[in-house]
């Protein structure tokens, strides 16, 4: 019993008080800033090293929907034209917003990336229950989604929870590149959620296929039929990225 009290004291209060302004380590690779004026050469080194073809040159751009935030482009660039900052609020309601071009600063991205709509706020603003479907996810995004509910991030305090049944959910959260073998189950889960419902795509794999884009055993037809309401890029996205994106959206 004494040990239990000691343990409780040792544990203390772990939750991050202000999740919207939480500090993150400087090493974290978040929003990339591109300064094309520093790009001097026709080398295309950044484009060549990028494992997911997220980078295009002339003009230089990074697609956050494909980017796995490995930082190889930053290392490859001799002139420092690409720099990853530790800004973690990367969520976006539009796929096009995720393409970052030269000179696009984080403050501007943050303002425009998520369009919060009145009707969404009205319906889901105070309570949002989500059903997670891993459709080929490697367990990276899944673990970060699970971490959103732990004592540190405690997403439940905002009325956002993951539930066991799609019947209890207001939307689904997809992870993974959507394998052929999971495609029917994903559609079933989506159909089981009552309208109005939202769809959130988490991680580079769901948004673009990520490192699995060229696989021959994916079936991404779900995305042709169903509109994604919120994109949360990353590989995997940090819990702060996930929670802030959802909070800004609702």
């Amino acid at each position, binding site marked *: 019993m004494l040990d239990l009290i000691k343990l409780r004291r040792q544990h203390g209060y772990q939750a991050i008080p202000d999740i919207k302004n939480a500090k993150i380590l400087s090493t974290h690779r978040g929003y990339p800033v591109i300064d094309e004026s520093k790009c001097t050469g026709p080398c295309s080194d950044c484009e060549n090293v990028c494992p997911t073809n997220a980078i295009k040159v002339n003009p230089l751009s990074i697609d956050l929907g494909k980017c796995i935030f490995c930082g190889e482009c930053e290392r490859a660039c001799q002139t420092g034209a690409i720099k990853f900052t530790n800004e973690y609020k990367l969520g976006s309601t539009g796929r096009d917003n995720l393409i970052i071009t030269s000179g696009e600063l984080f403050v501007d991205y943050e303002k425009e990336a998520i369009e919060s709509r009145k009707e969404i706020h009205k319906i889901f603003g105070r309570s949002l229950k989500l059903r997670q479907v*891993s459709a080929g996810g490697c367990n990276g995004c899944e673990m970060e989604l699970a971490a959103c509910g732990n004592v540190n991030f405690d997403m439940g305090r905002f009325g956002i929870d993951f539930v066991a049944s799609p019947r209890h959910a207001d939307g689904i959260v997809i992870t993974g590149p959507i394998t052929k073998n999971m495609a029917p189950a994903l559609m079933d889960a989506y159909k089981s959620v009552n309208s109005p419902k939202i769809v959130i795509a988490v991680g580079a794999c769901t948004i673009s296929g990520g490192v699995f884009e060229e696989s021959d055993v994916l079936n991404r037809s779900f995305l042709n039929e169903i509109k994604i309401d919120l994109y949360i890029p990353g590989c995997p996205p940090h819990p702060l990225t996930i929670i802030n994106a959802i909070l800004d959206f609702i």
Partner: protein
Amino acid sequence: MSWIEIKNLQSVALHDIPRLKVEVLRDQLIEKIRSGKRLVQFFGDKDNGDVVLYAIAADDNSSKLFIASTKFTSQKEYQSITPEIPSAHLFEREFFEQYKIKPEGHPWLKPLRKGIAGVDSSEIPYEFFSMKGEEVHEVGVGPIHAGIIEPGHFRFSCHGEKIYHLEIKLGFQHRGVEYLFVKNNARPLYLQKLSESIAGDTVIGHSGTFARAIESLSNTSIPRRAKLIRTIALELERMAIHLGDLSALSNDVGYLTGNSVFGALRTRIINTTMAICGNRFGRSLIIPGGVNFDISPELGEKISSTVNQVNDETALAAEVLFSSASVLERFEKTGVVDKATAIEIGMVGPSARASGVALDIRSDHPFGAYEFFPVHKLTLDSGDVFARSYIRFIEIQQSVKIINDQLGNFTEGETNKPVQPLEPNRLVVSLVEGWRGEIAHVIITGNDNKIKRIKIKDPSFHNWFAVSLSVRDEGISDFPLCNKSFNLSYSGFDL
């Protein structure tokens, strides 16, 4: 003709690998396993229209690996090994599924990753066992599970609350990983990133296994400092997952203090990994030739003080957890896998060690820095949920010691070296003790100095069947607890 003998990470020319008749290979493999060796890999490769089958057995006592092969030209079947060697059952099913060569007499020759209902009618459908009789019933769970976890289908055959058998059908996560490794074999950096996504909870484990295989095939000897950093990262990964597992195990028995406390401790460890390389799971840390990120003296001190503090706090939390009667009542004698069964089905990792099998690749087939820092093998005997939980606790303590050893032995120097092209027509076996157990990557290079075939084995490949066996005769309500005590990978199995 005897099998060729190599060591972990020692590559061998393809023409030096003995080519036996399939009957001879079968007999000799059975004899080897019966005399205490362990089946590590068993896989096929296309060779000018023919299929070559490679078998790799490990002698863990002498740190040796034995390889032999056989060739199928027109022959489309052979006599199954599984009836003699149960640990071969999934390997043979995989070989059959990939190359259509039938192991005659295999007791459960079902599809492994294919055959899921409603997906592709051209595949052989997977048929579940069914149980008939009064008061018996079946419970199907999945592919989508209640929590935020990966998909798989579990079919329970029950009598009342009691589980007779659990059949596990995986394959939902199949992403064509091995295919992508070969398809994109001209892009080494892509391959390294792909290896990080084989199983996203074992980033350091799989990416290190792959990088070491590439280094062996290109005769690159990496700087000592890089080896130490990789080892620190691997042990941090082990600590983080074990802490997360203790948290989840506490949750599964309704012990919420443990759930919160171990969960918070895990966060501190994965944040330490992020302090090294900018990602909580260690992505981007390892590249062939070394590591992308150095550990400065200040960071080294921070890592040391964090792991020591986490160690002290874990000790108290574990003391409370493992002395709680309500926890012990659920943990003890639940989901038992005995030692003989564990050896027979080829279990690996902490789950095997919890059943008394002294197998740890860090000690048995040392790689990287473990060559100069021997690891003492830890085992427990009871093989129940308690043992699989407690071994995680003592392995956390061991990891802390290993991390401090590495930090105390840092030498100045580079953190990576350029990698030369791969040597053609060679095979290498790369074994690593990940947090789940033995990760085995086998790479075969072609004439063009590139990867021609890669066979990846996550430890889950061996251990899923142990989950099935552990729940026999248990109540169905104990399944989540038993499953969590193994914490196996779906994506690592499905590839």
